[in-house]
């Protein structure tokens, strides 16, 4: 389980400060997958970054209790534009201590980038980047996958392949997912939370969370 203790997080938005969490304490259980729902700018992506550890809270503590948590898979991407897809994969393998050969082969087959795999990532379309990111994270074994909108990109065939790979992974791992697509989160997640005005509320089913969220609109 991932524990948030008295966590405050805000970010700058022009002249204002936007509060994502205001002294929030909660636990995210393992064994179930969670959907994060909230308005644009409510801080859904920031929450994922906090869970991943790529961003630090202003105050408070976050404990991951030894869980292997992925980086947030999102549009912004974790790839260096000047390096090729293959080199980016190699870099990720080195920092996560994975086998370069096994992961590269998996990603090459999964992402179907063809010759683009050896071209700089800056030449990729956002769909190609998403395929690379998704393939890379699926090749590595995490306990918790953090997914930021990424499943809704790509063509139908690719989406189906993602779902298949995901379904396989989900038997042993959890997903924490941000998505505006209700059908996507209903498919992947068991429960949900709504992020609003610095507070977070949990709901036992994704349906309840969606209803609660829509009621607030």
């Amino acid at each position, binding site marked *: 389980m991932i524990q948030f203790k008295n966590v405050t997080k805000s*970010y*700058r938005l022009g002249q204002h400060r936007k509060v994502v969490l205001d002294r929030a304490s909660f636990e995210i259980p393992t064994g179930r997958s969670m959907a994060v729902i909230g308005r644009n700018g409510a801080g859904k992506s*920031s929450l994922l*970054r906090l869970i*991943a*550890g*790529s*961003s*630090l*809270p*202003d105050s408070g503590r976050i404990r991951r209790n030894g869980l292997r*948590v992925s*980086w*947030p898979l999102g549009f*912004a*991407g*974790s*790839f*260096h*534009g*000047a*390096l090729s897809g293959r*080199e980016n994969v190699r*870099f*990720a393998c*080195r*920092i*996560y201590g994975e086998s370069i050969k096994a992961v590269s082969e998996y990603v090459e087959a999964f992402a179907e980038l063809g010759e683009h795999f050896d071209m700089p990532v800056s030449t990729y379309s956002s769909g190609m980047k998403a395929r690379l990111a998704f393939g890379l994270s699926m090749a590595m074994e995490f306990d918790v996958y953090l997914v930021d909108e990424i499943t809704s990109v790509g063509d139908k065939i690719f989406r189906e392949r993602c779902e298949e790979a995901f379904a396989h992974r989900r038997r042993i791992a959890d997903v924490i997912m941000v998505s505006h697509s209700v059908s996507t989160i209903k498919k992947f997640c068991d429960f949900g939370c709504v992020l609003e005005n610095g507070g977070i509320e949990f709901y036992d089913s994704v349906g309840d969370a969606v209803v609660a969220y829509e009621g607030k609109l």
Partner: protein
Amino acid sequence: MALVLREMRTRFGQSQIGYAWAMSEPMVHILALTLIATALQRRPAIGDSTEVFMFCGILPFLLVRNISTKTAVAVSSNGPLLTYPLVKPVDTFLARILLETLTMMVSAVLTGLIFLAIGIDVWPDDSLNYLIAFAVSVLLGAGIGVASAVVISVFSAWRTVLGWLFRVLYFTSGVFVVIDDLPPGARDILALNPLAHCVVWFHTAQFEEYNSLILDKSYVILWGAGLLTFGFTAERALRRWTQDK
């Protein structure tokens, strides 16, 4: 370590020319400065080879400049890689310091070997002292680089200032004049510049007969260590505010 390898892929551009330039940079500077000095019919200020004198000056200058300017922009040029929670800004600093140090070491050795091959004796009189001067220059470069990286995260204009600063320092660090030979007024002002001490330190290690009045070893070490401490401390303090830009 992964970052060092990843940096190597982009440090030199996508082509062989990048490596060639990184390796020959000291040589190009030395040749240009030697040509100018010869055209002006200047005798080397110390020793009897203009090339060796220039080598001693250009080596610490390029070392400090390259480490500083590359480390200062380490975070922005690694941008998206910081999405991986395992990659911290400090790691990108260390990777760049290490890579620039290694690059300059290799290119300095190559330059030295070329000089030896064509019969110019570049072997320093006091080689241990020479290595210490090298290490202290790395310290100073790392200090300026890390401190600048933090300043840039708050005032991005510092990046441009730093570039100009090194253009000025090229002329004021005693790379091609001996600061000891200047009038006392000018000498004392130029001696405030820690990089000048690195250059003089190299000169004293290279030429046994040269004793500098201005060289203050603890002064330059203090600058390097002080800036490095400031940089790392400020990075820690500002981490929460700067990372989410």
